[in-house]
């Protein structure tokens, strides 16, 4: 006669690992390796920007005054708050609190959506002012050194576009985590998945810190 266990069976590692601790370390190391490649991608753009920021300090500082500092600040605050809720969701899943995990996760996704909405509004505002020198659009600039300012805005759209793309990927990833949370199968595995997801989301936050500082804050007095 088959007996059904009354309690959840003890979590086992995947067959290639000796134990769960080793598997968790491998998960984290693998994710950090992926993030290192991502950093090289962003790092190349950052390095290019720094070279030209050094070459044309006045033109870049003046061009930066055309960006909306208040919206940039709001987005920075939103993103770090979403990172906080992501970190809290990791702790909630660790404490086996399904509804709280779901709530924190949905708040994180919601804040990510608001971030992208604000970014979209900013892009539209810059487009309406003729400050979008991409896709063959005409660049209208009233200040000095229009050609160098155009270069600044090329970097602006490359950096914020690359970041927004990563935000989009992150939000799709977190939506998948919502489905996993609703199912709530294999909590130890879910905890590891949350840890990995949290790493990616926080990494996107770290990249934004430098994008915000380089583009919005290193400006001339307006």
């Amino acid at each position: 006669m088959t007996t059904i266990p009354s309690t959840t069976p003890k979590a086992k590692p995947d067959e290639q690992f000796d134990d769960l601790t080793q598997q968790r370390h491998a998960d984290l190391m693998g994710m950090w390796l992926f993030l290192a490649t991502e950093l090289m991608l962003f790092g190349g753009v950052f390095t290019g920007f720094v070279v030209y920021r050094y070459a044309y300090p006045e033109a870049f500082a003046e061009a930066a005054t055309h960006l909306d500092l208040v919206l940039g600040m709001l987005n920075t605050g939103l993103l770090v708050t979403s990172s906080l809720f992501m970190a809290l969701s990791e702790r909630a899943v660790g404490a086996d609190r399904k509804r709280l995990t779901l709530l924190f996760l949905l708040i994180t996704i919601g804040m990510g959506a608001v971030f992208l909405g604000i970014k979209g509004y900013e892009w539209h505002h810059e487009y309406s002012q003729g400050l979008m020198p991409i896709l063959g659009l005409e660049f209208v600039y009233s200040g000095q050194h229009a050609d160098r300012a155009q270069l600044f805005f090329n970097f602006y759209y490359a950096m914020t576009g690359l970041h927004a793309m990563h935000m989009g990927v992150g939000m799709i990833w977190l939506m998948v985590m919502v489905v996993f949370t609703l199912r709530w199968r294999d909590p130890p595995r879910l905890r590891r998945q949350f840890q990995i997801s949290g790493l990616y989301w926080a990494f996107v936050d770290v990249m934004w810190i430098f994008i915000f500082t380089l583009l919005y804050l290193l400006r001339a007095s307006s």
Partner: protein
Amino acid sequence: MKDVKAPILAWLAYLVVLGASITVTRWAPGTLGHVFNLLCALVMASLVMVFFMGLRSADNLLRVFALATLMWLAIMLGLTMMDYVYREIGSSAMLSAIA
């Protein structure tokens, strides 16, 4: 839930540093202000990495791995800029070369 206090405090510290950085941008822009902005960015990034990316509780191997990642970025940025600074990027010949 365990260990909730640390991320909340890190979040508050982040907002304070962000506020300081923006205040300096509004009231004291310039070279010194820009240096302060970059230092603030490093502090904010460190707070996120230590408290939200788990480096605070990670083992030493993972911490070394994370630092090595940053080191590669520093090498790329450092060697690139060393070249441009050494070759006096402000000269007209250099500017036309990179333009």
